[in-house]
C-alpha cells in the first residue's frame, strides 16, 4: 500500500513539473484559429483532459489538446487574449512550457455509438476524442458548428477518420443554416452517447435534451482555471462545489444538472455573471 502511494505521489508530482515543449509545426486551421504541434515529454492526455500552457512573460492558460501522437501534442488555439495572441505569433523552433495533463477527460469506454457535437474552438477536445474512438473501432458522427464556413474546424480530419460529418453555420455559408444544437437535437435519439464541447448555452441545451431522452452525455465545460490542481478555488461550480479542474472539465449531464452551469458563471473573486 505504501509503495502504491509513493508511485501515486510521484505520478502526481510529475504532472506538476513544468516541461519545455518545442514547436515543430504550426498550422492555420481556420480564420483566427491556429494549431501548434509540440514535442513534449508529458504523459499522453485522455481526450478532454487539459494542460496548463505557460508563455514566459505572459500568463499560464488551460488548453485541452486536439491530438496526441508519439510525444507530439497538438494545441488548437483561438487568438482571443494577450497570451493566445502571443501563442499565435510563435514559430517552429520556439518554445512553450507545459504541465499536466490534468482533470477528468471523456470516458470513451462507454458502450455503443457516439454523437460528437462541437461549437467553435470547442472542437479541439472533440476531434481528439474522435481519433481515439475511431481507433477503438467505434461508430462516430461529428456535428460541427461555427459562425461561417471559414471558421469550421476539423471537417476534413473527421472525414479522413471515416466519421459521418454534419455541418452548421450561423450565416448558412456551408451546411445547415443555424446552430450545431439544432442539427444535433434531431440526431441524439439515434445514439447511445453524446460528447459535447463549445459555448455554454449550446451545451446546456444538449444537456437538457440528453436528460430528456435518457442518452448518456458527457460535456466538457469551461471555467476560470488558475492553478489546475484543485487548490485555488477559481473554477468551482456552485452549489455542488465541483472543481472544474479536478472533478471536470468533463462531466456527465446528471452531474451538471442543478448547478450554476447554463445559468451563471462564477469568476474570482466570487463575481457571478449570467451565461452568455
Amino acid at each position, binding site marked *: 500500500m505504501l509503495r502504491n502511494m509513493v508511485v501515486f*505521489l510521484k505520478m502526481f508530482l510529475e504532472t506538476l513539473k513544468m516541461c519545455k515543449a518545442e514547436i515543430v509545426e504550426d498550422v492555420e486551421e481556420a480564420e483566427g484559429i491556429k494549431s501548434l504541434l509540440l514535442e513534449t515529454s508529458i504523459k499522453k492526455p485522455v481526450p478532454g483532459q487539459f494542460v496548463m500552457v*505557460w508563455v514566459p512573460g505572459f*500568463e499560464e492558460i488551460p488548453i485541452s489538446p486536439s491530438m496526441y501522437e508519439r510525444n507530439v501534442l497538438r494545441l488548437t488555439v483561438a487568438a482571443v487574449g494577450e497570451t493566445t495572441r502571443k501563442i499565435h505569433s510563435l514559430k517552429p523552433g520556439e518554445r512553450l512550457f507545459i504541465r499536466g495533463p490534468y482533470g477528468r477527460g471523456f470516458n470513451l469506454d462507454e458502450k455503443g455509438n457516439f454523437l460528437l457535437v462541437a461549437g467553435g474552438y470547442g472542437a479541439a477536445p472533440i476531434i481528439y476524442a474522435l481519433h481515439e474512438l475511431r481507433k477503438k473501432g467505434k461508430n462516430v458522427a461529428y456535428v460541427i458548428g461555427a459562425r461561417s464556413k471559414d471558421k469550421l474546424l476539423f471537417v476534413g480530419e473527421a472525414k479522413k477518420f471515416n466519421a459521418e460529418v454534419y455541418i452548421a453555420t450561423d450565416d448558412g455559408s456551408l451546411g445547415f443554416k443555424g446552430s450545431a444544437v439544432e442539427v444535433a437535437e434531431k440526431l441524439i435519439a439515434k445514439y447511445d452517447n453524446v460528447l459535447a464541447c463549445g459555448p455554454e448555452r449550446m451545451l446546456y441545451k444538449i444537456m437538457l435534451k440528453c436528460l430528456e431522452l435518457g442518452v448518456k452525455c458527457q460535456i466538457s465545460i469551461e471555467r476560470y482555471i488558475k492553478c489546475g490542481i484543485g487548490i485555488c478555488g477559481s473554477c468551482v461550480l456552485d452549489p455542488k462545489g465541483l472543481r472544474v479542474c479536478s472533478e471536470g472539465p468533463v462531466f456527465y449531464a446528471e452531474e451538471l444538472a442543478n448547478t450554476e452551469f447554463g445559468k451563471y458563471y462564477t469568476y*474570482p*473573486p466570487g463575481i457571478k455573471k449570467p451565461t452568455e
Partner: protein
Amino acid sequence: MVNLKVSISKLKLKTPIILASGVLGSSYSTINRVIRETRIGAIVTKSFTWEPRVGYNTPIVAYTKAGIVNAVGLTNPGYRALKEILSNIVKNDAPIVVSIAASTPKEYAEIASFAEENGADAVELNLSCPHVKGHGLEIGQDPEYVGKIVHEVRSVLKIPVIVKLGLTDRIVDSALKAEKAGADAVSAINSIRSVVIDVYARKPILSNIYGGLSGPAIHPIAVRVVFDLYKNIEIPIIGIGGVTDWVDAVEFFLAGASAVAIASVIAVKGLKVIDEIIKGIEEYMDKEGFQKISELVGLAHGN
C-alpha cells in the same frame, strides 16, 4: 474506546483534524462538500480582506522536488461577502473559523465583528501570508504589532480568536504577545517564502516571483516551531505544515499541538485523505493505549 474529541478554547471539535485556510475554503459550496464528505473537526475559510481581491495572474503554482510553491494572492470576494457565504453553509457540528487578512488593527477588528455577527464560530488572524505585501509576514514578525492587533480584536469579540503565525525568528515572542493580549489559540506555521526558477525559461515561474512553499519539506520545521511554542505558551496550539498522513499528525500532537490542520495534501490525494488521517490516528491510539488526544499533547517534552 478512543475519543477523538478536542477543545480549542470554546470550540468543540469532533476530530482533531482541521481544514487549514487556503484550500477549498473560498466558497460555501466547497466548504459544504468537506462537511458532507469527511469527518473534519473544523474548517478555516480562505482569508478575507477588506476589499475584494482577484489574486495574482497565472502561473500561481510551481513545482519543486520539495513540494508546491503557491502565490494565489489572497483571492477573495471581500469581507462583506461573508454574510452570504456563512448563511449558505449547511448546519453541522464542525466549527467554521473565518480567516482574516487585513492591514491595520482596526480593519482586523471590523472584519472579525462582521464575521461574528454573521455566525462565525471563531476567527483566525492571518498574520503570516508569505507573498502579499502589507497583509502578512511583516505584521507577524513584529511582536508589539501582533499584540496590538490581538488586543483590538479581542476587545470587540466574544468568539475565540486564533492567531496564525508564520516562520520568523521572533515567532515565539509574537506568540507570547498574542497570548498576553488575549488570543485563545495560536496556529503555526504558514507556507514558507520561496522562489522557483525554470532553467529553460530562465525566469521565475510564479507571476508574483515569490510564493509560499508547502508540503512535506516544511513539516520538520513546523514541528520545531510547535515544540518551541509549547515550551513557552499556555494557550492551545494548532500545528500546520506538511502533514501528509497520520504519522505527521501524531508527531504534531507529541510536539505540543492540540489539533492539526492540513491543506496542500488535499491537492495531491483528494478529500478522502482527511478521513484516512483520522482513521490512522484512531488506530495508533487504540494500539498504543491512548484514550484521548490530550494524553498525547506535548508528550515528547516528558521528563
